[in-house]
């Protein structure tokens, strides 16, 4: 694929009079992984939500998978998978019902739901309401939801924060290093995050403080961001 997965130029988004993001520019090739570091409130989640087409850019150019935001946002939906802080699942419904609902929204068949429940090892408890499950299990179902429609681009906000190491291994082929998809990951873990990155972006107060290919970044560069 010759079209880069992400082309961002001068992206800005303000929250009233405060700049949540300003002057963010980057290009990410297909199949590559971008890891975003930065202290809380630096704009990582905002950036992710803009790329997911949930927030409109206030200035600058953003192209996701070749489609311009916000005008062509409709083309982006369905090709992007978001795993944020919220699992985006209904607590009263079971895992299977939740996934079925999302499957119907995305025009995906029941077999895919079964397939993914197996992939995240939730087949055993897929018929119990989510509120009876542990946080880690809910997160696994959330991972299944995020990749249910086979998105080309994955947007992950600290995806493994609620998972034990075994679970992290389990979901690796879906959202981890083993996944063939283009990924943007927000991370607080310099070591683990760097290991997965092709490109590193460091945000501070909405501005890009660091943008380099992963090979040229050391953990101390990342620690600088948090100072």
């Amino acid at each position, binding site marked *: 694929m010759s079209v880069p997965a992400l082309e961002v130029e001068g992206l800005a988004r303000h929250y009233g009079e405060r700049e949540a993001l300003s002057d963010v520019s980057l290009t990410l090739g297909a199949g590559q992984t971008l890891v975003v570091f930065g202290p809380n409130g630096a704009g990582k989640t905002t950036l992710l*939500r803009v790329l*997911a*087409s*949930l*927030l*409109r850019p206030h200035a600058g150019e953003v192209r996701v998978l070749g489609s311009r935001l916000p005008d062509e946002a*409709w083309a982006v*939906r*369905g090709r*992007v*998978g*978001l795993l*944020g802080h*919220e*699992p*985006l*699942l*209904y*607590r*009263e*419904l079971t895992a299977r*019902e939740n996934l079925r*609902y*999302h499957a*119907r*929204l*995305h*025009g995906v068949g029941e077999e895919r739901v079964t397939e993914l429940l197996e992939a995240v090892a939730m087949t055993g408890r897929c018929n119990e*309401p989510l509120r009876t499950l542990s946080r880690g299990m809910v997160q696994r179902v959330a991972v299944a*939801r995020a990749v249910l429609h086979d998105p080309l681009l994955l947007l992950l906000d600290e995806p493994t924060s609620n998972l034990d190491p075994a679970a992290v291994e389990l979901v690796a082929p879906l959202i981890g290093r083993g996944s063939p998809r283009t990924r943007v990951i927000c991370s607080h873990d310099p070591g683990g995050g760097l290991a997965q990155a092709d490109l590193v972006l460091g945000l501070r107060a909405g501005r890009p403080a660091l943008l380099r290919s992963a090979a040229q970044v050391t953990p101390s560069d990342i620690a600088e961001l948090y100072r």
Partner: protein
Amino acid sequence: MRRTVAALLRKELLVELRTLESVPGMSLFAVTTFVVFHFALNRSSVEGDLASGILWVTLLFAAILGVNRLFVADADQGGFDGFLLAPVDRSAMLVAKALTLLAYLVVLELVAVPAFALLLLGPPLGGAMPDLVGVLLLGDLGVAAVGTLVAALAVRTRARDLLGPLLALPLLVPIVIGGARATSPLFALAHPAGPAARWLLTLGLYDLVFGLIAYAVFDFLLED
């Protein structure tokens, strides 16, 4: 679009059946309110204008309870994002939610109207039923459209339980006017008659205008 609305409806009904948050509460509220009215007015039976007014006010306040709960599950459990990320027509959420609210209102009335006839209404309902059903349905359509819009407006604000009723009540006054005036001849003790055409037209006009407006502006409420 139809497929999306169907998927949304299935999810709505599943959640409601599991939690039973809205419908039982609305129905119980209506019946209790009739009892309260009995004591407040110190009357054993009402008819005509008074009966009509009591019925519509009670239905209105019970509807507001439903309106308050309509989007809460979605707002609190991140359901908006899940829907917004899907490649679907966003107006499907308005249609699905309005149909859901309409269904709640119908069930509410299935409980409240017999309760009303039993507890408070003087004249027998019998022959007036078809007319009553028609007027109630016209009113319900308007409440469903405006209620869904107000629910979406209020749910992601700080004082969501207060703002919902404060916004909805003035907006629904024309429905109360049209509905109460239309049904008061049905409840008359002497010479019961059918509803006057002008009130049906008022209700119909309201349903049309606000249905269109809700359709036009709803999508703007869904964005983050």
